């Protein structure tokens, strides 16, 4: 416990010192310190109340903590390699943000998670706006307001749950055997879920996500999709641990999976397209959580952090170097490392073996019931179809600097190979054949779909808030009256 807490404190303190001077050095030392403390407490420690009874904050080192710490440290290392020359505010902000995410992975206290979600959104917003572009600031402002509305709902839920059960710790809540036929608990849990879903970026609740992730500067997009979203996911995982809300999570998972996919299929702006895919990929994690397949959901969260980070890094560099955001205008203008990075990322997200996406999808599907396998199949098909758009981009034009791409690409491959070998069943030729078949079918589907042009509604600011409120009420009502 002491090692983990001092790791977080080290990250925060060194990050803050970086604002005064020597930002890169402090960032590097923080990374080294974080890795050392990680090695000291891994593979985990039992739950401890920091501050003691009766109201202390519960922290524990479980599989989620290990996974997200590893993800955070890898992303931090990547960004240090990639953005060594960035301006002085970037490194300290990144360090503090990663420290916040590490703390979020440790925390098992609902209010502590609220503070961490809020802190991470604020830092992320400062980073988004540091690009000094009007569209990024506008997207960031919407992000801030929507998140704040969501977290207000979260506070209401927190008040109800605490008022009824008198504790905030996830394990203590689970111990008291919460019964969702109790209206206070049902409404409270519903609002907690809705608020977290807004912060996470679930479709209809957190409609800020694609624009905010898409308009942010390259390195910031990597962090946002890579790890900031995962604080929301880990909060949902904690909620699923404390309350019997599997069905609602399944519902949200299907909603966000297909909603995000629908928009991604016809999106032309490369980075916003990737943002919609983050919305869609959340579907896998939420369905995993809803099915009670914690390991699969965690593996998917880590894998998504790595390959989406890789995709955003390559796409962001391409956009920044050419000044073009539209996929069609980027054809044939990528340098070799960017094309390879984009290719590896696209193959991983589409689920081609033996990359990270394949392993995560395989583990997720292992114990899943038939309908969930069907949903995964449909999602995989749609993902492959929409990523077929990027195939023309993969023909490189010239050599160029690789930056931090190799680090992430190597991590994607390593996680994929390790997951495939460890999961056992995934080595069978049938699993590989199925994965390749899905991608092939998806590529075919893409050519069929390219003739269709549906008029999908655009969500303005006001409509996003209305949809947030409506969907939150829906989620809370589902918990309260759904008889789940």
């Amino acid at each position: 416990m002491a090692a983990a807490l001092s790791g977080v404190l080290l990250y925060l303190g060194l990050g803050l010192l970086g604002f005064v001077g020597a930002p890169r050095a402090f960032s590097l030392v923080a990374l080294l310190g974080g890795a050392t403390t990680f090695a000291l407490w891994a593979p985990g420690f039992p739950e401890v109340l920091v501050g003691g009874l009766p109201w202390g904050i519960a922290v524990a080192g479980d599989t989620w903590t290990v996974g997200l710490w590893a993800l955070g440290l890898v992303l931090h290392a990547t960004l240090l390699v990639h953005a060594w020359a960035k301006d002085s505010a970037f490194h300290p902000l990144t360090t503090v943000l990663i420290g916040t995410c590490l703390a979020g992975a440790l925390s098992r206290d609902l209010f502590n998670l609220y503070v961490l979600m809020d802190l991470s959104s604020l830092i992320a917003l400062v980073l988004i706006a540091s690009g000094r572009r009007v569209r990024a600031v506008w997207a960031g402002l919407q992000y801030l307001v929507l998140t704040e509305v969501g977290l207000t709902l979260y506070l209401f839920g927190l008040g109800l749950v605490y008022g009824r059960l008198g504790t905030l710790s996830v394990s203590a809540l689970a111990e008291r055997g919460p019964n969702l036929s109790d209206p206070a608990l049902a409404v409270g849990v519903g609002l907690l879920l809705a608020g977290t879903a807004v912060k996470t970026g679930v479709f209809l609740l957190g409609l800020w996500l694609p624009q905010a992730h898409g308009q942010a500067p390259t390195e910031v997009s990597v962090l946002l999709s890579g790890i900031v979203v995962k604080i929301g996911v880990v909060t949902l995982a904690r909620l699923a641990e404390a309350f019997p809300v599997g069905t609602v999570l399944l519902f949200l998972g299907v909603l966000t999976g297909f909603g995000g996919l629908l928009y991604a299929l016809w999106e032309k702006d490369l980075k916003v397209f990737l943002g919609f895919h983050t919305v869609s990929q959340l579907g896998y994690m939420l369905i995993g959580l809803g099915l009670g397949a914690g390991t699969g959901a965690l593996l998917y969260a880590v894998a998504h952090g790595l390959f989406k980070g890789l995709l955003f890094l390559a796409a962001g560099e391409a956009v920044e170097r050419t000044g073009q955001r539209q996929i069609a205008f980027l054809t044939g203008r990528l340098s070799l490392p960017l094309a390879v990075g984009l290719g590896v990322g696209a193959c991983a997200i589409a689920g081609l073996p033996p990359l990270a996406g394949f392993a995560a999808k395989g583990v997720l599907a292992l114990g899943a019931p038939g309908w969930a396998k069907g949903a995964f199949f449909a999602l995989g098909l749609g993902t492959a179809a929409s990523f077929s758009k990027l195939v023309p981009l993969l023909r490189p034009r010239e050599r160029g600097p690789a930056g931090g791409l190799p680090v992430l690409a190597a991590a994607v491959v390593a996680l994929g190979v390790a997951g495939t070998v460890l999961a056992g069943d995934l080595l069978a030729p049938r699993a590989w054949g199925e994965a390749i078949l899905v991608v092939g079918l998806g590529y075919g589907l893409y050519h069929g779909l390219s003739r269709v042009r549906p008029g999908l509604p655009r969500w303005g600011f006001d409509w996003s808030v209305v949809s947030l409120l409506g969907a939150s009420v829906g989620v809370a009502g589902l918990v309260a009256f759904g008889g789940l």
Partner: protein
Amino acid sequence: MEGLAAVALAIALVGVGFWTLIVRRNLIWKLLGLNVGASGAILFLVALAHRPGARPPIVGLGPGPSADPLPHALVLTAIVIDFATLALALVYVIFLTEHRHTQDVERLERDEERGWPQP
């Protein structure tokens, strides 16, 4: 009774605040609405911490049970967070006003659709 009145006020504040947040077109008005809505959530926690006849949670302040101190502590954090959010949001509203000469959401959205032409 007192607690319930405060709870009712909290719920009303959220309604009024979020209504303003959605219906008004000016960004600063929206932030004011958000502010009021968020203060509703804070009041909600404090109101639920109150029990009939409770004294403040300070040792030696009279007999009887004290109000639940934990929500009070949580709420202090929430108040600061609300202020922080507001300050940042205002900075970016000022930024947009500087660069787009408007705080009107509909105009900003129209500009966004047209690819942000020079004002």
